[in-house]
């Protein structure tokens, strides 16, 4: 009797929005980012299977743990990062309306889960014992301080307008009254800027700035541990793009689960391409310059919309 729901959950974890699908779809998203970047730079770009090849190759490579590193922390960091993002993906509404493990208040949990990889990365960089890793971790932490406020503010605005803290509630509200991207344009822009920083793409790729601090926290990671970080990167792309879709573009909801899931995927790709495009046409900012767009512009924009929602000006 209980075997059917158990199997369903297992299938959800392992196949559809879980491991298999997220790796495949996330791999395609990362490939698209790389392909678009290459094409806009005048190059041809990698073939479609590139991300999978990279990850698989790293998995079967030798893993070196440096002498200077704190071993437990060094190994734990990528694992925690991977696990948190995997859990986040299970909470995202990949069925159009509902997520795999949805419950009341899952939106808050989702945002929390997306915060954990940052801490894990900071932790891993510190544990690796290389000067570049430590500097990178410091930068990651300070960037986290910059972007977390606008991210949460814009999300809170959405929660307030939707009058719900569950993912399905937010999506349904948008399906009924139009997407929040139109109703809350300023919070939307604020969210995009903050999400760019969360993805650590240009202009905010400060934590792993190649020319300054080699690869930042990733510097000492090799082999399968690096592969876990690479997988986290894939999941991060997927999760952040899906979060943007959920919070701001949950609008066309047809009712048929398969069609809704397909529409959701198209929207995720759309957001991923926006992030990729911003990444391509910008140089990297300095760490104290990154505060300017994040704290001044994004926070102010999000705050204006929050006030609008609380005063009741939003139609």
């Amino acid at each position, binding site marked *: 009797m209980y075997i059917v729901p158990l199997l369903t959950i297992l299938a959800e974890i392992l196949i559809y929005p879980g491991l298999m699908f997220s790796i495949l779809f996330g791999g395609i998203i990362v490939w698209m980012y790389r392909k678009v*970047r290459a094409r*806009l*730079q*005048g*190059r041809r770009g990698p073939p479609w299977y590139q991300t999978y090849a990279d990850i698989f190759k790293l998995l079967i490579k030798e893993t070196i743990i440096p002498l200077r590193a704190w071993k437990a922390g060094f190994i734990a960091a990528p694992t925690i990062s991977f696990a948190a993002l995997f859990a986040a993906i299970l909470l995202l509404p990949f069925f159009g309306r509902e997520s795999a493990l949805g419950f009341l208040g899952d939106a808050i949990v989702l945002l929390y889960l997306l915060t954990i990889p940052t801490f894990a990365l900071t932790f891993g960089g510190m544990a690796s014992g290389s*000067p570049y890793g*430590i*500097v990178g971790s410091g930068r990651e932490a300070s960037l986290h301080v910059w972007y977390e406020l606008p991210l949460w503010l814009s999300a809170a605005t959405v929660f307030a307008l939707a009058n719900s803290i569950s993912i399905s509630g937010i999506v349904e509200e948008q399906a009924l009254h139009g997407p929040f991207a139109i109703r809350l344009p300023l919070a939307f822009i604020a969210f995009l800027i903050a999400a760019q920083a969360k993805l650590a793409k*240009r*202009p905010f*790729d*400060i934590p792993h*700035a*190649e*020319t*300054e601090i*080699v690869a930042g926290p990733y510097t000492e990671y090799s082999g399968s541990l690096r592969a876990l970080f690479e997988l986290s990167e894939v999941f991060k792309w997927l999760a952040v793009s899906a979060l943007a879709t959920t919070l701001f573009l949950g609008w066309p909801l047809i009712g048929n689960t398969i069609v809704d899931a397909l529409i959701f995927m198209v929207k995720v790709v759309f957001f991923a391409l926006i992030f990729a495009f911003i990444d*391509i*046409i*910008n*140089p*990297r*900012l*300095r*760490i*104290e*310059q990154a505060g300017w767009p994040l704290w001044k512009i994004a926070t102010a924009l999000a705050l204006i919309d929050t006030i609008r929602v609380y005063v009741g000006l939003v139609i």
Partner: protein
Amino acid sequence: MEKVEGKICSIPIGPYHPALEEIAFYKVYVEGERIVDAFIKPGFSHRGIEKLAMQRSYHRNIQLFERVCGICSDAHTTAYCVAVENCLKINVPKRAQYIRVVEHEANRIHSHLLWFGVAMHAIGFDTLFMHSWAIREAIMDVVETLTGNRVNYSVNTIGGVRRDITPELAKYIEEKLKIVEKGTLYLIKTVKEDETIKARTSEVGILTKEEARKYCVVGPTARASGIDEDIRKDDPYINYEDFEFEVCIEDTCDVYGRIMVRLRETLESIKIVRQALKNMPEGRLIADLPYPFPSEDVGRVEAPRGELIYYVKSNYTNIPERVKVRTPTFVNLPATKPMLLGDKLADAPQIIISIDPCLTCNDRLVIVDLRSGCEKTVFLQDLIKGRVKL
């Protein structure tokens, strides 16, 4: 990272670092993110070129000096040939001089576009890096067709040049120059209108005019600090007095100024190449060479990185008695220290890159520095060991 004193920590940049094309070691002392002191240690690519030069004939030395630096390879051979020609009183045919000018300026265009790409890479603007290198491929084609190799031109020889420019080749060069000019104009426009590049580069790595004079910087680094100096104008060599061009000067004294100076210079170089191709005189390619006699002289050349000086002393043999090289990076490198002080750690790579450090150029000379008692380097001991063996 290690603590030095109080809040001050030291961070190593290099020797193997993705921002640096070649290997050098910078130790930057930081207080938080602000740089309070810097220590520069080149010398990793010392190859003993000057010693080798004293064992080879004049002609074989050309290929040796070409490999001092692969990026400004033409400037090095030109300077060496000019020095030897001054020394041995050789009158070079005018056509050869004009062909040299074409190559010299093609070299400058390629070097500046390359540097621009690397500088953009240092601030994380990979798209412009790729675009500038895509434009650079046009001039690389010119160089390859003209000389037969992409990097080491090997065209200059003592008393003239080894390859001719035919009319078809001139037409080909003109075509490619159009692409380069269009691309350079695009790069200038982008740099001017892009606020993020400005935010990243302006008022960074400041070297005031007084400091620039104090540190005797040369080339684009000096011109970006408002010093009007260009060997092509001040002391014309290889018939530069025939050409009209402007010396590009910026008075912003920062990295942004250095970018603009180099980009504008690229346009001037294109102008010079066009003039040279248009007014190419007829004549021989190589002058008659005399037997060597005791004499000495210098050759001064405006390399892409600044003033390059070769000193040649000859005797009755076909081997130079002494060849001494003073490269632009040798004088520009110490100036990175005042540039670095007070700036942020994040700007260190682009400040170091902004002088276009060609450490391979530099490192033949560093032996003097190392000999003055740096115990850390194995180099000195090895040198002594080598001598003992001899």
